[in-house]
């Protein structure tokens, strides 16, 4: 068995899981990144998308929204606003949220509203993507 590290995934409203993990893939601001045990210490930002982690020889997936991740050689802590496993996602709600966001984007918005809407759209897209690959 490969070397493992401790992976804690924490959302604002729940602690999603704490497991021994071999391999973690997460979306950062500049693309996907992978982490193995013994990674150099690193602090990285998370963007909305899908994370994958390998524990006990099995790949697990979850959909995360914005957050950040602390990587140390023997543990990783992942903080996000929300974390859902693909089974938990309400596809209909996500679709509705996506449509709503797209509609709002077509209107003239202030910069702040534009950023909000875009973040909402990104979250919805990540959810839809995660859920439809069940």
């Amino acid at each position: 068995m490969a070397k493992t590290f401790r992976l804690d995934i924490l959302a604002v409203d729940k602690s999603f899981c704490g497991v021994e993990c071999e391999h973690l893939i997460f979306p950062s601001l500049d693309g996907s990144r992978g982490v193995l045990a013994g990674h150099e210490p690193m602090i990285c930002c998370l963007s909305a998308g899908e994370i994958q982690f390998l524990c006990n020889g099995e790949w697990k997936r979850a959909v995360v929204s914005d957050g950040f991740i602390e990587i140390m050689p023997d543990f990783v802590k992942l903080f996000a606003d929300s974390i859902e496993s693909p089974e938990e996602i309400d596809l209909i709600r996500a679709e509705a949220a996506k449509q709503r966001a797209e509609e709002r984007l077509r209107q003239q918005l202030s910069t702040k509203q534009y950023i909000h809407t875009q973040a909402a759209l990104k979250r919805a897209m990540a959810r839809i993507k995660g859920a439809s690959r069940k």
Partner: protein
Amino acid sequence: MANMREIKERIASVSDIMKITNAMYLISSSKLKKARDNLDKTVPYFENIQSTIRHILDHSEDFEHPFFDVRRSKPEDERTYGYIVVTGDKGLCGAYNHNIIKLAESELAKHKNTALFVVGAVGRAYFERRGMNVDTEFLYTAQDPALYRARRIQETVTELFLRGRLDEVHIIFTKLERSAEIPTIIKLFPLEPDLLGDEAYEKKYADAELEPSPKAVMDHLAPNYAKGLIFGVLTEAFCSEQNARMTAMDSATNSAKDMIAQLTLDYNRARQAAITQEITEIVGGARSLKRK
């Protein structure tokens, strides 16, 4: 001896109020259960995020960033201190609102320029009446804390802080410790490595890399941290409020019960006295008739 009718009315009104306090007790205890569940879920995040931030600050090299800018060069009379004060939306929760307002006032008295951001209607009404510098567009309820609300609050204060309108931001809220509510202050901005760092902490790992760049990471991380913190604070304050209301209403119900017991005793005494008097009168009347 008090009038029987008066005592009866008094008993009726006390028992009516007792019905209300009892209902409020039940409502707040069920709300507390839910709030406590939510609090238990946020606590791991809340604690971990604080230790992680400290960890991150310990493991990253010194660098300049607006969020760490203490603005030492600014003289005290020009500095503006921002306070986010979390109160309840309603009264009838014992000393909960009173304690938090008292703490906020003693804190406000220390500085010349202050700005208030009040969550909850009671606190807002109080400070507005006092003519304090309350942000009138900062309208948030203390009920059912939600992440999006924490995000809005964070955006408001972050923007003001970065634009230099606020030089320090503190949060005043009520902490729940072993079912006792304790008003607390925590500092939000600027982030201070020395304040966060605790002495006993040993540096276990080499300096961490900040990817893609320290600035980009901090740009993201600081607001995220603030948002997490604010959410944790709102959840905890809401939980404290419910706990305070539950205790207050419980003791109100109990004292209403005591009052009713006392009043019933008084009523019975008055009734007894009235009956005795009537009997005496009748007996007296009968006796005087007999003599004739």
